[in-house]
């Protein structure tokens, strides 16, 4: 009773309040303050859109105030249990209903599948194949049109028809991001996830997906391993943090992928999980995860799209060697300086031919290469079934003679909605990849080094058309070299990989929000390697034998994944998502190889093993099989409140067969949170910043990459060969060439990340910044052990601790000046790497590569970045014997007793009077501290222009070409043209030591900063200019769209590096041995849509 009485008085209680011209939520706040004894209940979305006129009430009953507020709105008020409830009017007046029809288009034409829904009621539909829609709502309701990749639009349902044009969204805020076993709306993401819109790079012709990523995503470092058409670039996410080749995990269409190359034209989007989000892929995710989504069909008209491009390529730079006369002079000087008698071969009075230049060998290696690249795809579908079918072909005849790569792709993706609870589909692809590369990384036989070495007075061909060799009379004076042009032209290598991947899935909607998905990925790779080596009979280095090496490599991966996912919003506020899953992966690899020799004829038609005999040397027959299993349980829960506060938790439990049973299982957790600050009431509206989100994450993932295919729990017994008996014949045997470690455990990467996403100027400017600390512990590697142990394969061990700290920034800006639309995308990252701990008792490990087995410049040293260069500091060249004699240690003995004027002065860092290993100091790291990319896109009417720059900074390179190219003490090889700049009594202003046929001072034999150069570079990687043909014209000839474009790659490079190419890659740890250089490529192409 008392309650009722009170309620009466509640609605009648007098109120004094004053409203401004404002939205109703503001008015209600004022009203709440005025009657602070009364509770209110309403939805912010309902009241925030209602405009209130300025008005004031003095001691009016509350019900009058509320009536005034809700007059002429769709809202009504009532009182229940002491609470004022404001909600939509229950009574629907039929006369206010309106059926709106219309169409949705973008600048290219109708859009099918655009979601159309009322903001205030449950009415919703989607556009059909022709972009048309029909929806019945109350008049004046706000309709929202949204479509992935486009900016959403809100339009009041006041009239019909409504013709809506959607604008493409470059901010990406509305985009859906693939996050592993599912997707999230970009705004909901709480981890560090980078995304690449493939359309930005579609006009380039690239050999691999990795190449597309270069410079596109902050924190993703992609470096080409030279320009060899058969070698892909290396990729590292957030730096190198382990001693093994820790590349990121590749996931295609939701499934871990180890198939063949993917045609870039088939890719819809690429997302990169950089932080704890990767923990969902626990076991192998320490290097980050790259998620590739391929194109799928959309309901609507069946489209045929054709892209064809072709072009030419040339070397960016060619190193030059000395001409014949300069070469002879250099060798003579070197012999004089070494106190040796000059060689007749270089003595003009004995051999005048030595001064006649016949061939520029380095130029002779290169040619103009050609690239062709075609893709054709058909896509479309009905409301129930959609499909995407594509085929592609790419051929790259590269710039070094006789090197090439070829790729075929075929893909079918389809999806079928069988009924409202069952969906099935598949991704299926086949690729064939083959090519012929050239050896450019050996310091003995690399093609580019050989061309520098080869005497310029030799000819490429003899008069009879056979290959020329070094001048026969003096063959012994030119060292071990083979004609590099002949080497390239004789190449007969192939490495064809056929890869078939099929990944069918079934999705079942169990109850609202709960979905079961099962997929079974099967990948089969079949690789056939064939290398035929011909006889080499020209003077120089003779090979009287020929042989054919053939290897067959088959691998198979089965990956079965079952997931149960749940996604539902409760009370419009609580959005809950959850995922649970079980996956099983089994990898099998089997190979055999055959080595045959003694081919009577070298005719390409008879280069098959049947025509040879089993090679009597070594082990002509080999074969092995390896199999590994991985079982995982995965889980993820996400919760957000009112789309403002987000939290995500990830858990994964992995078990592998690769390590001993007691250490087999490992758990990987991840947790992250986000807060969209700009949705808070206190956040200034209409300010400069329109969107602001803070993110933080922590997570762990694992890594077994260091194990390769070896079984660390026991040691493989190697097969040996030897020769015994009379007559001696081959005898095979066995040797235990390693030591096992049963205590090996999983490598673990722990990562903490904080980030911020900002949208400024109404979404024109978007900024994402992240800072992270990534720590790898227990990293798996096998450190070299002292040779005295007598094992070639040291045991695997778990290392100590490596840390990467970094910051990443990416900025996107879009705008327009009249018809000129433009956007700029810049990203950069700074990474600081440090080895905190290698192994107990171990502070240094010497790493690969070595230069001609002599220089070992790359060390792993505690307290320094991984793979840093260590060597002697130099203090210029000795200019006189006095300077040599005055360089004394504490005992008065000469520090460099073997030095002569023109030799390098090494700094005796520890001042013990001797130059020893202890004097070696840090000389920089090959891994870039800063890597960045900048893309600018312009659109003006039918024209589009895209410019992309990419670069790195803060890294050093070890120019090992100097070791062979400026060093006259190896084998009388020809030298780099720079050798003319060597020190002599009359040419003292140089840092190149004197020419000498001996190296008593170790000018070249010592690792020193003489070899180390700044590796920073900036490269204009890509420029594309396109022209879209007029639509009206195209319509007349029945073409949906057509565009022609021109594309230039590697237009210009800015660097101080003096070697061939500063982009030396990662595999060689920054040691440049004359790597296959990159090409400048000019392409023209056409996109046609039917």
């Amino acid at each position, binding site marked *: 009773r008392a309650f009722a009485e009170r309620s009466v008085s509640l609605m009648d209680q007098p109120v004094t309040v004053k409203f401004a011209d404002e939205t109703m939520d503001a008015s209600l706040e004022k009203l709440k303050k005025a009657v602070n004894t009364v509770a209110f209940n309403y939805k912010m979305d309902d009241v925030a859109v209602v405009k209130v006129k300025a008005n004031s009430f003095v001691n009016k009953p509350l019900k009058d105030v509320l009536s005034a507020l809700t007059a002429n709105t769709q809202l009504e008020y009532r009182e229940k249990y002491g609470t004022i409830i404001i909600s939509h009017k229950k009574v629907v007046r039929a006369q206010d209903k309106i059926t709106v029809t219309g169409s949705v288009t973008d600048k290219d034409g109708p859009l099918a599948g655009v979601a159309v829904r009322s903001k205030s009621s449950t009415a919703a539909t989607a556009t059909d194949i022709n972009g048309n829609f029909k929806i019945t709502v109350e008049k004046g309701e706000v309709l929202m049109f949204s479509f992935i990749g486009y900016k959403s639009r809100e339009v009041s349902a006041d009239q019909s028809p409504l013709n809506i044009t959607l604008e493409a969204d470059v901010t990406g805020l509305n985009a859906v991001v693939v996050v592993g076993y599912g997707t999230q709306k970009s705004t909901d993401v709480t981890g560090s996830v980078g995304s690449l819109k493939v359309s930005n790079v579609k006009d380039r012709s690239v050999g691999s997906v990795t190449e597309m990523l270069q410079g596109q995503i902050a924190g993703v470092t992609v470096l080409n391993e030279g320009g060899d058409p058969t070698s892909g670039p290396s990729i590292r996410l957030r730096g190198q943090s382990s001693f093994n080749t820790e590349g990121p995990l590749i996931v295609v269409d939701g499934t871990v992928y180890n198939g063949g190359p993917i045609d870039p034209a088939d890719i819809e989007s690429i997302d990169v999980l950089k932080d704890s989000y990767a923990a969902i892929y626990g076991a192998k995710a320490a290097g980050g995860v790259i998620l590739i989504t391929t194109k799928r069909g959309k309901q609507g008209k069946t489209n045929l799209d054709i892209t064809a491009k072709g072009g030419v390529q040339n070397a960016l730079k060619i190193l030059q060697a000395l001409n014949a006369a300069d070469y002879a002079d250099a060798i003579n000087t070197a012999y004089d300086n070494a106190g040796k008698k000059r060689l007749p071969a270089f003595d003009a009075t004995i051999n005048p031919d030595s001064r006649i230049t016949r061939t520029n060998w380095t130029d002779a290696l290169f040619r103009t290469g050609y690239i062709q690249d075609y893709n054709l795809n058909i896509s479309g579908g009905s409301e129930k079934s959609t499909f995407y079918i594509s085929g592609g072909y790419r051929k790259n005849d590269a710039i070094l003679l006789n090197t090439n790569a070829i790729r075929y792709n075929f893909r079918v993706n389809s999806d079928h909605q069988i009924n409202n609870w069952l969906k099935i589909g598949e991704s299926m692809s086949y690729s064939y990849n083959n090519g012929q590369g050239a050896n450019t990384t050996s310091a003995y036989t690399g093609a580019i080094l050989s061309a520098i070495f080869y005497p310029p007075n030799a000819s490429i061909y003899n008069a009879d058309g056979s290959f020329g060799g070094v001048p026969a009379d003096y063959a012994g004076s030119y060292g071990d070299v083979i004609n590099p042009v002949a080497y390239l032209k004789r190449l007969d290598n192939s490495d064809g990989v056929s890869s078939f991947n099929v990944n069918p899935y079934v999705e079942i909607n169990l109850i609202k929000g709960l979905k079961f998905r099962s997929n079974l990925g099967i990948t089969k790779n079949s690789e056939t390697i064939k290398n035929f080596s011909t006889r080499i009979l020209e003077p120089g*280095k*003779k090979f009287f034998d020929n042989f054919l090496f053939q290897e067959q490599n088959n691998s198979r991966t089965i990956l079965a994944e079952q997931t149960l996912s749940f996604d539902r919003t409760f009370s419009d506020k609580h959005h809950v998502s959850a995922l649970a899953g079980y996956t099983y992966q089994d990898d099998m690899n089997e190979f055999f190889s055959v080595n045959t020799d003694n081919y009577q004829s070298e005719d390409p038609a008879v280069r098959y093993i049947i025509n040879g005999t089993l090679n009597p040397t070594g082990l002509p027959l080999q074969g092995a099989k390896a199999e590994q299993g991985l079982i995982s349980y995965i889980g993820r829960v996400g919760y957000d409140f009112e789309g403002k506060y987000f939290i995500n938790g990830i858990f994964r439990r992995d078990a592998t067969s690769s390590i001993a049973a007691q250490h087999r299982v490992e758990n990987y957790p991840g947790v992250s949170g986000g807060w969209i600050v700009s949705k808070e009431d206190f956040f200034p509206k209409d300010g400069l910043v329109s969107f602001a989100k803070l993110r933080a994450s922590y997570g762990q993932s694992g890594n077994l990459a260091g194990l390769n295919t070896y079984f660390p729990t026991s*040691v493989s017994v190697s097969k040996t060969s030897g020769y015994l008996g009379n007559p001696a014949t081959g005898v095979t045997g066995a040797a235990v060439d390693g030591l096992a470690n049963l205590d090996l455990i999983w490598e673990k990467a722990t990562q903490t990340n904080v980030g911020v996403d900002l949208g400024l100027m109404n979404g024109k400017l978007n900024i994402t910044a992240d800072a992270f600390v990534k720590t790898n512990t227990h990293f798996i590697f096998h450190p070299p052990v002292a040779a005295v142990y007598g094992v070639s394969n040291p045991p695997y061990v778990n290392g100590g601790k490596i840390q990467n700290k970094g910051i990443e920034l990416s900025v996107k800006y879009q705008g327009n000046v009249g018809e000129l639309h433009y956007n700029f995308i810049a990203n950069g990252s700074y990474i600081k790497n440090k080895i905190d701990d290698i192994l107990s008792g171990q502070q240094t490990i010497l790493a690969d590569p070595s230069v001609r087995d002599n220089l070992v410049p790359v060390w792993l040293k505690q307290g320094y970045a991984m793979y840093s260069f260590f060597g002697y500091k130099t203090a210029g060249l000795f200019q006189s014997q006095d300077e040599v004699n005055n360089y004394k240690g504490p005992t008065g003995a000469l520090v460099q007793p073997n030095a002569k004027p023109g030799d390098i002065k090494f700094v005796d860092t520890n001042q013990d009077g001797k130059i020893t290993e202890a004097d070696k100091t840090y000389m920089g790291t090959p891994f870039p501290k800063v890597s960045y990319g900048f893309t600018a896109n312009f659109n003006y009417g039918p024209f589009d222009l895209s410019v992309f720059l990419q670069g790195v900074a803060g890294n050093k390179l070890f120019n090992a070409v100097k070791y062979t190219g400026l060093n006259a003490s190896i084998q009388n090889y020809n030298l780099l043209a720079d050798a003319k700049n060597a020190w002599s009594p009359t040419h003292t202003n140089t840092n190149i030591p004197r020419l000498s046929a001996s190296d008593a001072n170790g000018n070249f034999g010592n690792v020193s900063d003489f070899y180390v150069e700044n590796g920073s570079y900036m490269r204009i990687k890509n420029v594309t200019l396109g022209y879209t043909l007029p639509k009206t014209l195209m319509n007349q000839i029945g073409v949906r769209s057509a565009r022609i474009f021109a594309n230039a790659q590697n237009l210009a490079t800015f660097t101080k590096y003096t070697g061939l190419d500063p982009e030396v890659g990662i595999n060689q740890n920054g040691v440049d041995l004359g790597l296959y250089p990159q090409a400048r490529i000019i392409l023209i192409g056409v996109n046609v849509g039917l």
Partner: protein
Amino acid sequence: PTTANFWKTADDAQAAANGLYEKQSNSEDLYGRGFFWFINASDDMVVGRTSADRENIKNFICTGNESSIYAPWQLHFIVMKRANDVINNVPNINMDAATKNFILGQAYFIHAVMHLEIADLYGSNKQGAPLQNRANPLAFPAQLPSVKDNYAYIEADLKKAASLLPYFDKLAAADKGRAHKTAAYAYLAKTYLHAKDYANAEKYADSVILSGKHALLSNYADVFKIANNYGSEYIWSVASNLNGQSILPGAMLENKGWGLYNGFGYYQPTKELVDEFEAGDKRLPATILQKGNSFQYFGQTYTYPIGGKSNSLTGYQFNKYMEPFSYAGGIHVSPNGDEPSTDLNVPLLRYAEILLIKAEAQIMQGKNGDAALNQVRVRAGLPPITNATMANLKHERRVELAGEWSDRNFDLVRWGDAQAIYAKPLHGSDGSVVWKARNFDPARDNVWPIPPKDIQISQGQLKQNAGW
């Protein structure tokens, strides 16, 4: 197979025994060139072509990290580890006793030979050479206190080997090249000689001599012929075949072989060596090619040097390993330009050296060594000498074993002659200096530098030899 299922059967044991010979015969870095770079430090030969690292070795200014030093260093320990694996595991295998003994004998023998080479080159009375812990392969292979401890270990292994191994003439044709009893005696004699235990050196030289299994060939030049790979003078050689074993013959051949073959042109003899031969010594033409000598080369007769042009720094070439190159069509040489091996077994320790070890051991004990010494001289067409001195012995060792693995540099070191001899420059055939006088400091240079790389990897557990 993996270690989890190996060491079970007689076949496993046999396979592991075969594995002992892989590195020995199949890699250029063990007996192809390998420690020959140290032998090259003597006054008998020079680095025949530009190669700074190798010149630095000869001039005793190397670092020890040079691949030419590191590779043979590493391979010796790999072979010793394999031998230890056999010694540890084969006794537990249930198999025929005679076969088992033969296999274990090979392991002890091969280990001892590798160990002796390392001990001679890296061990001194101040600091011994590293030795793997046979019982525990994970224990650090530390240096022994003195090289004497290395020699004692080697002697014990060789005695076990000798007791387990059969005589050479009991080996099947297919097993020739494997260790045998008198080879173990021969290495015992050599080890005792290096350990300066002359009584035992003489005793074990006699074990070889009195076994009656060996004899000098009547013609010195025949020692270096394919037909005599396992002739009566054979005790221990690099089992060779044109498919990829000791490349020493190719390494010594004229650089690029006058356009006909990929010779490497290293290790060219000096005038000092040529002048050491007495007039009428049949060994000179068999050992060295001089200007105007005729020789067979790929089926034809040529005059050295072919076409009057040579890339030899000294104007000479070793002739000992030239027989494989004499045949038309190159039927006894490797067709592979990177691996110029031949069908000729390269001797490591032959019967003549046993006679010289006996003579030296006798002279050093104050006994008369004439009988053994004169066997060698007479075969060379020289008159016998009486009351031979160490000077006679040194001369005889030099000319008999020139250009072979017996290692004159180590001889000069152990005789204490290196410093004086290396202080003189070396000459070519025209009398000009081809190698300047060198500064040899016995306190340091009697042994070679432990590779600093390994010192670093071992975190200082390995210690550098004094002065290096």
